[in-house]
């Protein structure tokens, strides 16, 4: 069975994660409850004419995938697998509003076409003329992990040698206002917003696109090996520790083997215990990291964490801004990531150097 390696990364996020080393310019924004991406120079990747017609998520996906492919030094891949929670939500909003505002008349198809969830994956395929396998997963917080599981299975089964896999989501103005209304996003005018020691429900929201080139061979520029990915729809608070241990055990590992534990803390006090219980007990002696104070919460925010973990394994450095506790390890060989949303859609991802 072939192993799966991360050989290239590309990340567009609410931090400057391109043309930088590793989060040295990162800042925590305590003033806003919805964070916007730091835009790359799109014109270096997409012609201005094409760019004008493209959805934000498509553009970011194209740039992040181009960065990943350049980083991996590959010109084509065998498959493209994408995860997205809401797809190109701005175009969905636009088309729906024009239907409602104009009583189903005077509509043009552009925003309908872009609103389809698999637009990002198919636009990348179109640009690269990649006729291979092309899937898009849309299952909330496990959209990206579903893509990872699929990609890993493809490589293990020798169905593909190289795969572009990514997670992408964009903020839409009306949708974020709805998320404030239903409490998914923290209420307005409640700054300072804090992710780690929050007492309020809801999350600080964000957006981004992270893409990775996965290959079946270790190369000089390899970041990490993907040991395992698991998604579990439903777990109670008191089942997390056992689930984490059984996941590690199935990979012949114990908690003491984990050199860093990346947690999806998003500032939602109502579901914080899913992270806190396991962090303060079973993993108390493990270096713990968080990231949503930098990336914001969104369905595929865990792809940002995946990018971060890959970077740590390659550089062997953990930026201070990511640390939850003061525990350190002499070197970082194995990293475990855990994420969930509102007590559902749990994921465990295991990477090694």
């Amino acid at each position, binding site marked *: 069975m072939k192993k799966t390696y991360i050989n290239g990364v590309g990340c567009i996020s609410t931090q400057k994660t391109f043309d930088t080393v590793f989060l040295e310019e990162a800042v925590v924004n305590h003033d806003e409850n919805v964070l916007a991406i730091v835009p790359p120079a799109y014109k270096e990747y997409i012609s201005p004419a094409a760019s004008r017609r493209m959805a934000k998520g498509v553009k970011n996906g194209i740039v992040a995938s181009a960065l990943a492919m350049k980083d991996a030094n590959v010109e084509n891949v065998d498959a493209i697998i994408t995860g997205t929670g809401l797809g190109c939500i701005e175009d969905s909003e636009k088309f729906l509003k024009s239907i409602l505002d104009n009583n189903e008349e005077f509509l043009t198809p552009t925003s309908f076409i872009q609103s389809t969830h698999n637009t990002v994956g198919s636009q990348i395929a179109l640009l690269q003329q990649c006729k291979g396998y092309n*899937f898009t997963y849309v299952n909330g917080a496990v959209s990206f992990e579903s893509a990872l599981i699929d990609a890993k299975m493809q490589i293990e089964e020798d169905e593909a040698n190289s795969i572009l896999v990514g997670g992408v989501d964009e903020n839409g103005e009306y949708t974020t206002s709805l998320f404030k209304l239903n409490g998914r996003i923290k209420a307005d005018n409640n700054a300072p917003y804090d992710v780690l020691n929050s007492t309020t429900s809801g999350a600080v929201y964000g957006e981004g696109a992270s893409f990775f080139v996965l290959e079946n061979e270790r190369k000089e520029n390899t970041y990490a090996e993907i040991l395992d990915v698991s998604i579990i729809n439903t777990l109670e608070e008191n089942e997390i520790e056992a689930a984490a241990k059984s996941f590690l055990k199935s990979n012949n590992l114990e908690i003491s083997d984990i050199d860093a534990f990346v947690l999806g803390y998003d500032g939602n006090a109502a579901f914080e215990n899913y992270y806190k219980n396991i962090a303060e007990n079973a993993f108390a002696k493990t270096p713990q990291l968080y990231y949503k104070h930098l990336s914001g919460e969104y369905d595929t925010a865990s792809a940002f964490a995946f990018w971060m973990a890959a970077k740590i394994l390659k550089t062997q450095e953990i930026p201070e801004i990511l640390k939850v506790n003061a525990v350190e390890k002499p070197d970082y060989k194995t990293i475990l990531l855990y994420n969930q949303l509102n007590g559902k859609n749990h994921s465990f991802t295991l990477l090694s150097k």
Partner: protein
Amino acid sequence: MKGVAITGMGIISAIGNSVEENYVSLTENKIGISRIQNIPTVHADVIKVGEIKKTNEELVAELQLSENNNFSRTAMIGTLAAKQAVENAGITSINEFRTGLISATSVGGMDMTERHYYDYFEKPELVKYITCHDGGDVAEKIAEELGLKGMVTTISTACSSAANSIMLGARLIKTGKLDRVIVGGADALAKFTINGFKTLMILSDDYNKPFDNTRKGLNLGEAAAFLVLESDEIIKKQNKKVLARVSGYGNANDAYHQTASSENGDGAYLAMKKAFEISGLKPSEIDYINVHGTATPNNDLSEGRALKRIYEDEKVPDFSSTKPFTGHTLAAAAAIEAVYSVLAIQNNVVYPNLNFEIPMEEFDLKPQTTLKNKNIEHVLSNSFGFGGNCSTLIFSKS
């Protein structure tokens, strides 16, 4: 045994609320295309649709949902079909084995989003529907209703979505990652998709006529279907009846245009080619092809050319599109057509391609236009979607 075992099926569509009802309609020419009733739309007098003639209230009652439920129509028809499939497979303890659910949808709970979009701020009682918009919401609800706790995910690749969920399910079992997977898809009619397809000018104002030279476009439909796939270990252990097997699958991208298929059907050709490779079957061994056959000028030309390329000098086997019965049910299409493919194998029938009159001028392909009884060992089913997403499944007699 080659291929992954199918042990249960469930379906709700415009031509029936169960597997049996759907089969009767298919073999007795009872079509489900009519004027739209459940959605108020300005296009009501122009378009024809394949609508499930049950109101949301009726669906709520049938599922015995509580008054404060927040099920979209998509989630309700999805749950109905998934429950039927699980029951049909004789599953009583859903988490007994490593069980997963792979669903498929194009627009998730858009039917609720579009209904309440501007009212959310005024009516607090509607706020519960905001989360329905999420593409994963349907799978989430089905999992909850089934009590399924393990792997749950959703695929959205437009009109090929459910083919891909069946494909993923088969791969998860083949690789031993799961023992049992419930696979399929659901899509309810929505103003959003009606108007989307309308602006693309691919909706017919008449009954759709796949592979006919005068075809004008598609009729949209709504449906949900799920199938239960199980490992051979479970089959052996529980001495289970196998309905048919998923013996081949292939996915490829046309990489030609966001919403149009290439003239030569590259993606479709590659998807079929891969499916034959996986199954180890030769094209000549296929007894019936359930074509995608949406009846848009573009799809049928592209698919027909791809079929001609696959079959080269050989005769293309009996083929038909069942969309004149059901309409094009988007992300659910491949799931309902998977059920129809299994029924074709079980009953040794080829369904008629209704409304066909004049062969297309581009090639000499003529679909089967009447119900035909013959031995069916292998059925090939095509599904293609926006974004160039092309998928092929092959089902075989167990």
